[in-house]
C-alpha cells in the first residue's frame, strides 16, 4: 500500500512533470533535426545503417505519431490532470483561493483534447474556381463564385486577394466576401482565401480552402483558459508583492 502511494505521488509530482517536459524538448528537437515522413531509403542514404535502423524502429521518421511520443503524451496528460485535481482539492480544503497555475494546466489539457478531436474529425478540401462556378457545400447550401479581386500597391506588389460570393441557403441568397485574414463562416464550415492566379486563358482563378474542424472550439477555449490563468497567477503575485 505504501509503495502504491509513493508511485501515485510521483505520478502527480512536479518532478515527473519536469522530466516529461525535458523529454518533449528532446522529441521536438529530434522532429526538426530528422527529416519527417520520407521513404525508408531516404534515411538509409542519409545516416549510417545503425542510426537509420534505430530511426525506423522507433518511428522517429514520423515522430509525432510514433509510439513513444503518443505514450509520452498519455503520461503527460495523466500527470497534468492528476496534479491539477489534487492541487485544486487541496486548495479548497485549506480555503486558499489560488487557482491560476491550475487554470493554465487545465487550458493546456483542453488544447490537447482539441488536438485529438481535430486529428479525428477535421475535414479539409481545396477547390480552384473561376467566376460563375458554383460549389455545393451541403444539401441546402451552395456558393456561387462572383468576381475575384486582386488589389495591388502602387509598386505593383499584391495588397489583398478577395473572392466575392453569393451564398444560397434554403433558397435565400446573401452576398459575402472571402479575404486573406478574413475567412467566411457558413454553418460550421470556414472558407479561406488560399490562392490566386491566372488560368491559361488569362482568366482570374481563386483557390479556396474549406475546413470543418470540431477540435477548434476546444483549442480556442484552452487558449482563453491559459490567458486567464496567467492573469490570475500574476494578479496573485502582484498582490503578494505589495505586502
Amino acid at each position, binding site marked *: 500500500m505504501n509503495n502504491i502511494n509513493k508511485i501515485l505521488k510521483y505520478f502527480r509530482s*512536479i*518532478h515527473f*512533470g*519536469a522530466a516529461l*517536459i*525535458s523529454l*518533449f*524538448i528532446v522529441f*521536438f*528537437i529530434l*522532429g*526538426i533535426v530528422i527529416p519527417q515522413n520520407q521513404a525508408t531509403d531516404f534515411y538509409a542514404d542519409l545516416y549510417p545503417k545503425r542510426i537509420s535502423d534505430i530511426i525506423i524502429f522507433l518511428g522517429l521518421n514520423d515522430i*509525432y505519431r510514433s509510439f513513444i511520443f503518443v505514450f509520452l503524451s498519455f503520461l503527460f496528460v495523466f500527470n497534468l490532470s492528476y496534479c491539477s485535481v489534487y492541487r485544486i482539492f487541496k486548495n479548497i480544503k485549506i480555503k486558499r483561493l489560488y487557482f491560476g497555475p491550475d487554470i493554465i494546466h487545465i487550458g493546456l489539457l483542453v488544447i490537447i483534447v482539441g*488536438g485529438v478531436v481535430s486529428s479525428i474529425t477535421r475535414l*479539409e478540401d481545396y477547390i480552384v474556381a473561376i467566376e460563375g462556378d458554383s460549389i455545393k457545400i451541403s444539401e441546402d447550401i451552395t456558393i456561387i463564385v462572383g468576381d475575384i479581386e486582386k488589389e495591388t*500597391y502602387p*509598386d505593383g*506588389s*499584391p*495588397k*489583398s*486577394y478577395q473572392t466575392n460570393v453569393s451564398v444560397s441557403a434554403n433558397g435565400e441568397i446573401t452576398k459575402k466576401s472571402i479575404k*486573406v*485574414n*478574413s*475567412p467566411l463562416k457558413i454553418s460550421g464550415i*470556414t472558407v*479561406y482565401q*488560399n490562392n490566386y492566379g491566372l488560368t491559361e486563358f488569362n482568366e482570374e482563378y481563386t483557390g479556396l*480552402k474549406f*475546413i470543418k*474542424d470540431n477540435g*477548434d472550439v476546444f*483549442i*480556442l477555449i484552452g*487558449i482563453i483558459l*491559459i*490567458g486567464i490563468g*496567467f492573469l490570475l*497567477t*500574476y494578479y496573485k*503575485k502582484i498582490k503578494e508583492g505589495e505586502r
Partner: protein
Amino acid sequence: MILTSAYCLIIASLASQIVDIFIKFKIKLSVFLNIAAIVTLLLELIRRSILIKYIAITNTYEALIFYSLSIILATTIYQATSKKDFSRYITFIGTIIAFITLSLSSTPLADNSITPPIPALRSNWLLAHVALSFIGESFLAVGFAAAIFYLATKDEEKKVYIEKIIKNSISVGYPIFTIGALLFGAIWAKNAWGRYWGWDPKETFALITFLVYTLYLHLRIIAKTKIKTTVIISVFGFLLTIFTFLGVNLLLPGLHSY
C-alpha cells in the same frame, strides 16, 4: 539619420554607465539617454509606418528596431526600479544586448528597403502577435543579462539577490511571450491559414523555447541546491529565443516572413 542618432545615444548611455561604475553620481544620466534612444527608435518606426501606410513591424529590419527598443525599455524599467548598487552591471549588459540587436539591423541579415506588407501580414493580429512576442523576449533578455552576471560573479551574497532578478524577469517575460508568440500566433494562424498549429519550423522552435522556460520555472520551484543548473537552463532559453528569431530564417525556411 534617425538611426545614427539612436546609435549615438546608446553609445553615450554605455559610456555614462562606465563612468558611473567609477564615479557615483546621484542622477543617472544613462536613464535619460536610454529614454532618448527609445523615443528616437520609435520615431524611426513611425517614419517607416507612414511610408508603408501600415504598422512598421513587417520585416526583420523593423522587428530588430522594435526589439532593440523594447530591450532598452525593459532594461531602463529595471534600472529605474532597482536600488541595489550592483544592478548597474546588469543594466550595462542589457544595454549592450540592445546595441547588438540594433547593429544587426545594419547587416545583410536585415533588408532595410521600404516595402508594403504582403496580404497575409495585413491583419490586426500582426501588432498583438509580434509586439507582445518581442516585449516578452525583452524581459527575458533582462533575465539573460542577470544570468550572465550571476555566472560571472563569485560573491555568494550577490548571487542570491541576482537569482531573484533572473526569476522575476522571466516570470514577467514568460507569460507575455507565451500569450504573444504562441497563443495570439495560433489564433492568427487559424484566421489566416485555417489551422492553429502547423509544425512550421518557427512555430516548433517557439514551442521549444516555451518548454525550456517552462522547465526553468518548474525546476526553480523544486531546486534547493542546484540553483546554478536552473540559471544555465534560462541561458539556453534565451539563446533559443535568438535562434527562433534569426537562426530559423537562415537555416529552416517556412511560412514566417521573419
